[in-house]
């Protein structure tokens, strides 16, 4: 008898064995388990985010709006998909932005107005820190496929919460976030949430002030008091606007504004010293079913398109720049993503 035949017969006979069903007994025991938390769960969600939320670089703003809602109304907003998306995406964005700002010493980013003679020079000079924003945007946009979110209330501590969530990036790598916070009422209509958020072994302190009447939110994310990121949020007509500022020693080093009013694109404007730029980001899918970032840029009189894909080993960005009426060229940049596995 061949070994494969023997194995097949063993498996066949084993498959016919009637396995005793003790699952109900176990479930009954599980129900009696003491739960340290009140757990509210949303299972993996496979539907696409609305880009409205995908674009929200609000950095915890809406997230804490939702938490304020919990505190104020004693209801569970986590069943509301909009809030879940806001929680996941804004927290992810906030952390990415903060990580980027606080990790890079050099100034910006993307294309900037300057005295460059040609596009190649611009990009060679100005894309040095492109990855700073690419990490943020690829996380935001690529998470559109799937995310997981869990919120827990620590029942032993009044008004203390923990939220956990996982997101994916352009390479379908997973990042895990843990947010711990406590809700305090400052005065009528104003609440402050203080805590920390951890992802990829980086932990930031966060402070959020939420004004119910104006529906405005201000967040501060930092690792030390000398360097921090402030994000404010407001809705102007149908446009959502997020203003982000990076402070060092209480001086603004860099600021950016993210805005969007439909589900198709993110607008990013930034200023850093004398440099500034304006961009529109979208996510695309190539013929190999791989995601890429598509960016329309307009800087001074120059405009064109950038496509950003990942190298096979996911460690590099391939940045293809196509100036209007110009020749395409490719730049590679190291990809700074760190993922939980």
């Amino acid at each position: 008898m061949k070994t494969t035949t023997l194995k097949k017969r063993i498996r066949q006979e084993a498959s016919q064995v009637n396995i005793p069903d003790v699952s109900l007994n176990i479930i009954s025991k599980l129900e009696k388990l003491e739960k340290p938390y009140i757990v509210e769960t949303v299972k993996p969600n496979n539907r696409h985010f609305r880009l409205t939320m995908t674009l929200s670089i609000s950095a915890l703003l809406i997230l804490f709006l939702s938490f304020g809602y919990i505190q104020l109304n004693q209801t569970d907003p986590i069943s509301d998909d909009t809030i879940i998306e806001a929680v996941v995406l804004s927290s992810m964005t906030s952390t990415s932005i903060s990580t980027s700002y606080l990790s890079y010493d050099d100034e910006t980013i993307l294309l900037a107005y300057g005295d460059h003679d040609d596009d190649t020079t611009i990009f060679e000079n100005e894309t040095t820190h492109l990855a700073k924003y690419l990490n943020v945007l690829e996380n935001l946009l690529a998470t559109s496929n799937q995310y997981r979110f869990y919120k827990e209330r620590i029942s032993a501590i009044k008004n203390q919460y923990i939220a956990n969530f996982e997101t994916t990036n352009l390479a379908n790598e997973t990042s895990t976030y843990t947010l711990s916070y406590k809700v305090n009422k400052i005065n009528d209509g104003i609440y402050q949430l203080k805590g920390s958020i951890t992802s990829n072994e980086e932990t930031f302190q966060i402070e959020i002030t939420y004004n119910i009447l104006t529906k405005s939110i201000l967040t501060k994310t930092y690792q030390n008091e000398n360097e921090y990121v402030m994000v404010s949020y407001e809705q102007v007509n149908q446009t959502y606007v997020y203003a982000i500022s990076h402070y060092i020693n209480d001086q603004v080093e860099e600021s950016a504004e993210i805005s969007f009013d439909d589900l198709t694109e993110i607008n990013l404007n930034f200023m850093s010293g004398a440099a500034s730029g304006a961009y529109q980001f979208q996510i695309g899918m190539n013929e190999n079913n791989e995601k890429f970032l598509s960016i329309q840029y307009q800087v001074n009189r120059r405009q064109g398109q950038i496509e950003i894909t990942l190298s096979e080993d996911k460690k590099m960005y391939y940045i293809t720049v196509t100036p209007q009426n110009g020749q395409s060229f490719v730049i590679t940049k190291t990809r700074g993503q760190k993922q939980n596995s």
Partner: protein
Amino acid sequence: MKIKDIIFEFKHQNYKNFDTFYRLTERQVYFAIVTISKDQDVTKDLMQDTYMKFIEKIDQFNDQLSVYAYLTTIGRNLAINEYNRRKRDIHDEQIFDYIPSPNKVDENEGILDILDTLDDIKRDIVVMHVINDLKFREIAKVLTMPLGTVQWHYHEAIKILKEKVGDVL
């Protein structure tokens, strides 16, 4: 739903998909235990204990490991502990009922019965590899045994089984 997602839920005290998890793993847990306990009632109890222990220690479970190997380890350890406890409690004559005779083969037996004629290590390795689909390196971890030794026992077991199965089938 993927088993990884269910475990993620377990880690957050959410057991609503336990039944799915049970259906995905019951066979591995059952065979890990029954090959040692030889008793349906004991196996049923130990299956419950295995899952409860898995849940209670879920924070210690590394997502990179095979959940099947992990459950097998728990079930097997519980079964061995129970076996040893019974061995102490039960009179020597009675315990022989739990231990199959190494040469016992008769024409009415199936292959699973013939498996019981192997020594404990060989039988466990065959069950874990062939029935429970564990990789040799996973079995080596469960048994805390070098990989080469596991493979040697497996091949020896297959040789023995081929001979014995050939005798009766």
